[in-house]
Structures are given as structure tokens and as C-alpha cells.
């Protein structure tokens, strides 16, 4: 059985082909990062136009790399939300029309469900587990007691972790997306040199806040000259990164005390950061799994896999499902 996944929820146009044995046959991703870099973030209008320009080519390349044609495809899965509505529409309408033209079933998938299941493409998993999604758009803990059942138990109340890294990076002259470069600089610095405060959200111990750290960093930077910032980049990055990740690991410990889990499944773009992974492994006494190479950031293989799991449980969707820019995971799971 060949399953095609299509992901256009934000700024990456992605298509993939997997089979029912979880074998990844192709995962093609066309990044728009360079188009958005000069604006310092994603411009929704540019993103949707680029998706329209790229979607055919990306899908064709995924099929060609898998040595199959559209007629061999058995199931089409597409991200229906949450995300940028103009971007989501391109992927969903393309997938719906392909489904109608080929007479093949379709599944509309929640982007976060894709991330939550992406580590299971390469690792065996057991329930209940705690999903931890850390990316430029999301930072949240999701308790998964059984397949297809989700409870968001904690999340950021302001910036996402990746967003915070991008903003911090911008303030010290690191271009978007800053996360991987901050990680690189951090390896050359002292992580305790700048003691940023540990954030907390009053009366909500399972939630996180990253905007205060950004402000604290601004206060530190104001006291430094441009030359000092340049020379101190390593320690600034190491200290800032440590503060962010310490906040996440401390929250994880509190959550796990209330929501017993057999493992943590870490996903999202920031899950590729080795420091975060190591800090979680060291501070938590259950296994921490992360997605295989290329499956941490937004990708279509996770959508194909999540779509296949749902298709087996529920069958095909009708072609009248809508894109939803904001889509609560719990209500999606209960549909």
C-alpha cells in the first residue's frame, strides 16, 4: 500500500511516500526559508504563492523517487490544520482534487498529530506516552493514553521555544532561522556566564513562558557594546539556550509526576537540538525518543503515517472537510 503525504501548513512545501510497513520511500521538502529570511520571519502571502508554485514539482519528485506513479497511490493524506490558511488551502485543494481524479481515499490530518507520531516511524512506542513538541510555532506537552487520543496538558502562554530562539538570534545578529546557529555558537561558550532567570507561569505549573527570557536577554545586551556582543556570542547563546531548555525540562518533570508515561516522544524542529535532547535524557528517568533524520522539522512523512493510522481506524474522509487555521487537538481527536 502506497501512502502519499502532503504538508503545506507553514512555509515548507513537502510531499512523501511511505508504505504500510512504515518504510519511508521518499520525503521531499522544498524550503522557502531564503524567501522569508530577508523579512526576518514568515510572510503568509509569499508562503501561499510559493506553495502553489512548488506543489506539483514536489509531489512529482516524491513519486518519481519512489518509482511509482499517481495511479499506484492507495491513500492521500494532507495537513488540514492548524497553520496559515492560505498555505493550508493549497495543499488541501490539491489533495482533494487528486483524490477525486484518482478515485482514492483521502485523510485530513492535524499537523501536531503528525509530529506526535513522527518518532514512531523509526522507533517502537508504548502507551501511555508524553508527546513534547518544540518548534518555531509550538511548545506543548500532549499526553497520549492510547492511539488517537490526545490531551494537551501544558503549553507556552506566549512565544514558542523556536520563536524565542529566532528573536534572540536576531538581536545578536544571527539570521532566521536562528536555532541551529545558536546551537553551534553555544558549543563555544559558557552556559552559566549569563544567569537568565527561570520563568514560571503563576498558578499554571504545567504551562511555560518564554517572552520574559527574551526581555531579560535584551537587558543583558543593552549593557554590552557591539564588539562585546560579538565576542560573547558563544556564552550568550549557551546561557540563553540553557535557560530555555531548563524551563522545558523542569516543566516536563512536574507534568510527568501527574501524568505517568512510559516514554517521552520529542518532536518539532527544535527536537534536532542535541542539548535539549541530552538535558531531557539526563533529568528524566524514562526513555526519550526523537524522530529519525529529516523527520524533526515539518515534513510530509509524518502526515502520511498519521493519515494511514487514522485511515485504518476510521476509513476515508469526505471531500467536504475544511482547512482550519486554529484546530484544537482534543476536538480534532474527538471528531
Amino acid at each position: 500500500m502506497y501512502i502519499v503525504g502532503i504538508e503545506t501548513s507553514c512555509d515548507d512545501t513537502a510531499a512523501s511516500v511511505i508504505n504500510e510497513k512504515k518504510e519511508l520511500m521518499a520525503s521531499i521538502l522544498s524550503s522557502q526559508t531564503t524567501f522569508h529570511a530577508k523579512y526576518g520571519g514568515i510572510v503568509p502571502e509569499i508562503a501561499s504563492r510559493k506553495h502553489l508554485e512548488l506543489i506539483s514539482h514536489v509531489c512529482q519528485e516524491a513519486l518519481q523517487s519512489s518509482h511509482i506513479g499517481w495511479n499506484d497511490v492507495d491513500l492521500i493524506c494532507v495537513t488540514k490544520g492548524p497553520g496559515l490558511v492560505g498555505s493550508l488551502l493549497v495543499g488541501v485543494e490539491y489533495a482533494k482534487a487528486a483524490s477525486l481524479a484518482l478515485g482514492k481515499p483521502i485523510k485530513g490530518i492535524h499537523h501536531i498529530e503528525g509530529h506526535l507520531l513522527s518518532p514512531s516511524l523509526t522507533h517502537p512506542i508504548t502507551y501511555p506516552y508524553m508527546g513534547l513538541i518544540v518548534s518555531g510555532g509550538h511548545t506543548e506537552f500532549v499526553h497520549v493514553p492510547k492511539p488517537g487520543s490526545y490531551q494537551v496538558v501544558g503549553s507556552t502562554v506566549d512565544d514558542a521555544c523556536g520563536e524565542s530562539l529566532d528573536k534572540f538570534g536576531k538581536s545578536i545578529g544571527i539570521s532566521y532561522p536562528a536555532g541551529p546557529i545558536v546551537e553551534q555558537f553555544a558549543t563555544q561558550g559558557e552556559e552559566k556566564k549569563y544567569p537568565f532567570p527561570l520563568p514560571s507561569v503563576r498558578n499554571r505549573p504545567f504551562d511555560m513562558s518564554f517572552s520574559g527570557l527574551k526581555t531579560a536577554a535584551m537587558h543583558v545586551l543593552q549593557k554590552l557594546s557591539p564588539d562585546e556582543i560579538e565576542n560573547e556570542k558563544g556564552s550568550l547563546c549557551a546561557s540563553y539556550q540553557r535557560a530555555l531548555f531548563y524551563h522545558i525540562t523542569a516543566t516536563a518533570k512536574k507534568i510527568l509526576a501527574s501524568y505517568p508515561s512510559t516514554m517521552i516522544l520529542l518532536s518539532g524542529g527544535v527536537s534536532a537540538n542535541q542539548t535539549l535532547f541530552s538535558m531531557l535524557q539526563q533529568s528524566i528517568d524514562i526513555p526519550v525518543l526523537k524522530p529519525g533524520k529529516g523527520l524533526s522539522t515539518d515534513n510530509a512523512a509524518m502526515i502520511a503515517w498519521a493519515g494511514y493510522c487514522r485511515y485504518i481506524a476510521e476509513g476515508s474522509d469526505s471531500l467536504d472537510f475544511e482547512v482550519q487555521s486554529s484546530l484544537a487537538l482534543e476536538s480534532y481527536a474527538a471528531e
Partner: protein
Amino acid sequence: MEILLQTVLSTIEIAVFQDKQLVFRKQSPSLQKSNNTVVYDLQNMLQNRGLPLSRIRRFWFVNGPGYYTGIRIGLSIAKAFSDTTSIPIRLITTFHWLRMGIPPSTERCCIFIPSSKKEGYLARMHHFSVESVQCIEKEQMEKDYHSNVLQEPLFVPFGGLDVSIPYAPVGDITTLPLDYKDVITSQTIEPEYIKSVDDLFQNRKECG
């Protein structure tokens, strides 16, 4: 049997033609929700009429100008059909599509297409040829034509914008001139077509 999909105006439509004559047309308001169910509506129409896709000789898509979300939806669907079937795909501009609702004997006319809350595109046409396209503010059109009903496309007999002349809504489209030479014809939709949409976006930016 040929099918046309128009998603770029405030009323979206699915039309079926047989031997160049309109045999079915469904129009619905272009709300976000109905835009999102275009493919579903198309599926229902095909099922209700007992039409298998194998009987479709050609798909027509209106590719703008018009509302941006609608353009994106129409082109996404067109690309998918182009990629997954061998049914020839044809793109037609909104001006040409609307011109078909005006008596063929009309030598010259202008067609105004709203593309956002504030502005739209005005084309001067000679028979079925577009002579010029101008991005223009609705406020200006309202002033010149003493009309505040500019949510729908307008057909106006040829005349300068500085002259107050009567207008009429675009009429019913009953035929599809398949041999029309200005219609873009290609089986595969290549990025050039997207470029033309980008040009329209660009024009809007310059006007706005």
C-alpha cells in the same frame, strides 16, 4: 462534455458544456466555507449527473484576475487534475469568461472585476481581445459610474472613465467558444501561468 470551474469571483461556479452549449451551471456564494467545498461540489455534480471522469473531454479553469484566495484554490485544483489525469486542462482569464456573457455582436466593452475591498481590474475589450487592463480603485469607479454596487463584475459599453455612462451586470454565459484563440492552451500547467498570476499581484501592489 467539458467542465469549467470558476472560483475567483464573489460567486463561484461549476459549469458543464456539451457540444459547446451550457447544460448545467451551479453558482454559490464565495464564502470561505463554500470555496473549500468546490471539489466536493464537483464530485456531487458528477455523481448526480452520472458522469464518470472518463467522459470529461476537457477541464476549464478561470485563473484570474479576482479574489486571491479563489485564484489559489482554482489553480491548486487545476494543477492536481493536470498531474493526475490525462484530461486536457485549459486556463481562461476572468475577462474572457465574463465576455462570453455579453452578446458576441458587441464590438467594444469594458469589464470591471473586483479583486479586493478597495480595488479591481478594468479591461477594455475589442470583441474577445483584451486591449488594456488597468488596476483601479472602487471609489473611482463608483464616482465615475454613480454606482455603489461594485461587489460584482460589471460590463459597461466602451467609454472613457471620465464619462458617466450606464452599466449592466454581466449576462448569462451560454456558450463556450472552444476555438477562442486568446485562451491559454496547454495540457500541462507550467510555472509560466503562476508567473502571470504573480504579475497580477505585482500590478495590484503598484496600484495600491
